[in-house]
Structure formats: C-alpha cells, structure tokens
C-alpha cells in the first residue's frame, strides 16, 4: 500500500520550490501544529488530556507562545529572504481564471478518485490557489489577534474583545485547510508527487507537465527558452 509515490531520482525532475520556501513551509507546519495542539486545550472543553502532554495548562500556554513566536520568525525570514517568491506566488494567484473555476468544480470527483479531465493549470491549480488565499490570511489573522490577546493591556478593550472570535475562526479555517492540504499534498493519489516538490524541491518532469502544463511551459518549456533569449 503505497502512501506517497516513491521518489524517482532517476527521472528528469524540475525544481518546484526553492530552499527558503520549503524551509518556511516545514517550519510553519511544525509550529502551526504545536500551536494548534496547545491551543485546542482551551478551545475544546474536554481537552485536559491534551494539556497533560505539555505539562499542564501553564505548560501548554508556554509552548503555545514559544511556537507562536517561532512561527512569526519563520514568516519574517520568508518575507526577507524570498520576497520575490512571494510576489510570484501572488501573481500566480491573480491569474485565478476560468480554468481554475472548472478545476475547483470538478475537483470533488477527482478527490473521490473518479478520473477527471482537468483544464490546464498554472503553477498552482485552482484548489491550491484557494488554499493559498485562505491559509495565509488565516495565519496572519491568527498571529495578529494572538499577540493582541497576549498583551491585552496595550490595546483598546474593544479590539481585544474582537480578537477572540477572530482567533478561533481563523484557527478553524486554517486547520480545515491544513487537513485537506496535508492529505492532498501527500497521500492523495495523483498529487502525491507534489510532496517531493516541497520536501526536496523538485518534481518529476512528466508529472509537472501533466499537472501544471502552463507553469511547465512558462518555466521549463519552449516559451521559457524564448523568454531566456
């Protein structure tokens, strides 16, 4: 039972994500999970067993804050060192068009395993674009409302009050996306290869061509050569 498609070093591969993007992604993953687990201690009423792992509520509170600070640092590093990557990422998002809508509409079938013909996709397909829009906004909201709740005395009471629901909503949305993204990015047949894109930075050439033709053409295909001249 093959969970994640085997890494084929012998096949032609193309670079999908540079080092900084990947380091940020995985750092963010670890810290987000930590924040999530220690945060659920407060969110769920029956989560006392969860608190025990982190050494009681104060321990959980401590870990939550350490992870949150680390997460913020990762984001800061990401912005400083790979600002161009972010700009490209956003540009790609702005290309959200007809193809992406079709992709998203057909996606449930593909999600359940029915073979579906998908329109050509750019670097990030419709679903990934959705995820790229929703998760970063949730995380930014989480970070901002988190710090406000951490130092409530500095901020006006009204602002602090609105942070509580925001923090929870953002957490739920982000976690929802994380669950889907985590599964799709690894165990889901077909898109499993993208795991290696994030883990090692490269994906199989043919997979890229098939799943992200526009992206492939523009970066590695003919149009890339024309542009390069």
């Amino acid at each position: 039972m093959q969970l994640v498609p085997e890494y084929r070093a012998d096949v032609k591969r193309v670079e999908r994500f540079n080092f900084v993007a990947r380091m940020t992604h995985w750092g963010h993953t670890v810290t987000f999970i930590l924040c999530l687990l220690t945060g659920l201690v407060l969110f769920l009423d029956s989560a006392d067993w969860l608190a025990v792992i982190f050494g009681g509520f104060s321990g959980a509170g401590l870990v939550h804050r350490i992870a949150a600070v680390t997460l913020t640092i990762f984001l800061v590093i990401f912005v400083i060192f790979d600002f161009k990557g972010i700009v490209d990422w956003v540009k790609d998002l702005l290309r959200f068009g007809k193809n992406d809508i079709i992709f998203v509409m057909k996606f449930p079938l593909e999600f359940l395993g029915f073979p579906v013909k998908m329109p050509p996709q750019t670097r990030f397909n419709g679903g990934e674009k959705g995820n790229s829009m929703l998760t970063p906004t949730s995380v930014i909201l989480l970070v901002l409302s988190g710090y406000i709740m951490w130092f409530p005395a500095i901020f006006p009471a009204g602002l602090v009050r609105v942070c509580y629901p925001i923090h929870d909503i953002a957490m739920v949305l982000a976690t929802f996306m994380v669950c889907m993204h985590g599964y799709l990015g690894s165990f889901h047949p077909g898109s499993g290869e993208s795991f290696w894109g994030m883990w090692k930075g490269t994906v199989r050439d043919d997979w890229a061509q098939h799943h992200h033709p526009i992206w492939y053409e523009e970066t590695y295909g003919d149009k890339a050569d024309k542009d390069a001249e």
Partner: protein
Amino acid sequence: MANKANLYDVSKCTACRGCIIACKDWNQLPAVIEPFKGNYCTHEDTNGDTFTIMRFIEEETDPADDVKWHFLKYQCMHCFDPACMKVCPQGAYTKTDWGATFHNPEKCIGCQYCTYACPFTIPKYRKREDKITKCTLCVDRVEAGLTPACSRTCPTGALSFGDRHELLAQAEERVKFLRANGFPNATIYGKLELGGLNMLYLLTDTPDKFGLPIDPKVPGQITFWQDWVQPYFGWLIPLALAGSAFSFVTTRILAGKNGEHAEGGHE
C-alpha cells in the same frame, strides 16, 4: 441559602473608604500604590490586588453655586448570568446558590478571556500568580454566617448585606423617599440590569453620573464568539478529517477497480 445581595446606598456614603481596606485586610491583598493625579481615587480601575475602588466624580449643578460630589463603590457586580462564566474555558467560575459569582483560582489558567467578556471589565490578572482575581462577595465569610468584610465595616450603613428581595423592598422604599426629598432622579441599579445583579445600587442620580453604563450589555463580539463560533464552527475540522479519510479510501478502491497504477506519474 436564599438569594443574597449587597446593597450600596450612595445617599448614606461618606466615602471613608473603610470598605476598600477591610476588603484588603480580609482577602490578604498587598497595596498597589499609584501616584495622585488630581482625583482622590488614584486607581483608574480595579487591579489584580484591588478588588474594589471608590470613584469620586464632581458635578456642578445649576444654580451654579451647588456642587455635587458623587461617590461610587465599584467592584464585581455578581451578575445573575455572568459573561465571565460563559467564556471561561476552564469552568473556573461558578455561581453559588445564594448569588456570589465565585472564581476558583485553582482552575484558573490566567487566559484573561473573562476580563474582556465582562461588561464592566472587572476580573483582573495577577501577574505573580498567573491568575485572575476579583471580588468574591466574601464567600467564605457568608457561608460561615458572617457578612462580607465591606458591609461589616461600613460605618453609616451605606453598604448592607442580606436577602436580595428584602433589600430590594427597602431600596424601593428608600428611592421613593429620596425622589421626594431633593433627589428627583434617584434610581435603583442592579434590579434589572443584565438580567439582575447580586450587587444592588441605590443611586442619588442617573447611573451615568456615577460612571455606570445606563444599559450594560455583554459585548456583542463575546456573545457571537460564545454562542456561534465556539459551539458550531469547530465542527469544520472533523469534517475535513473525515473528508480526507474518505477520499483516502475511495481513491484507492477506485484506482484498484480501474486497474490504474497509482504511481506518481500519469493518471
């Protein structure tokens, strides 16, 4: 025990502030010294070690030569339906059968949700213990048959502790007398506010003159958070997990059925 309450009759209060100190004596609270800036009350608000403060508000009435000096003892209002209890993730707040909103420090983890849920922002964070503290209406004294420290020490009887309905009856009587004797807009505060408070006020003027919100409400964001976000929104996560698990299974079954070789490359 019958539903109790503390009644504060402003018309009898001389702001001797004995209540503030008796509270500190009984609850073993250290002093928090903040500089004098022109008002007898040097605290903006209650704090982690000060459960109750006395506000001094000057007002010039017409004709211009009359001055009014409004005093107000300000502390936890012990609401019937406390917002702090609603938001506390640890269930540290309980409502005693006779009316005190009691906060159990052992369960408290210092998350300060209650501070901002309270319409009066009363519960305060005590840094050295990483706990929330507030007026307890002297639960230990009352359950031992005594009165709270503040009403026991009040020299003029401005503060009286007893059965809530009896005190309300007295207050109704007293407010009629005051309205007829020079205090036309004397009001009772705490009978209906927020569904009823276990701390009753008999004010000689409208509540705003004493810095009390005329019609206090639990802040909208908190209600939205507690009534909608907390209970329902959370279900999205299990939904997502279930969806992924379902897809994990079905994609493999269908893949097997259609004979494709589900490896990384093509469909």
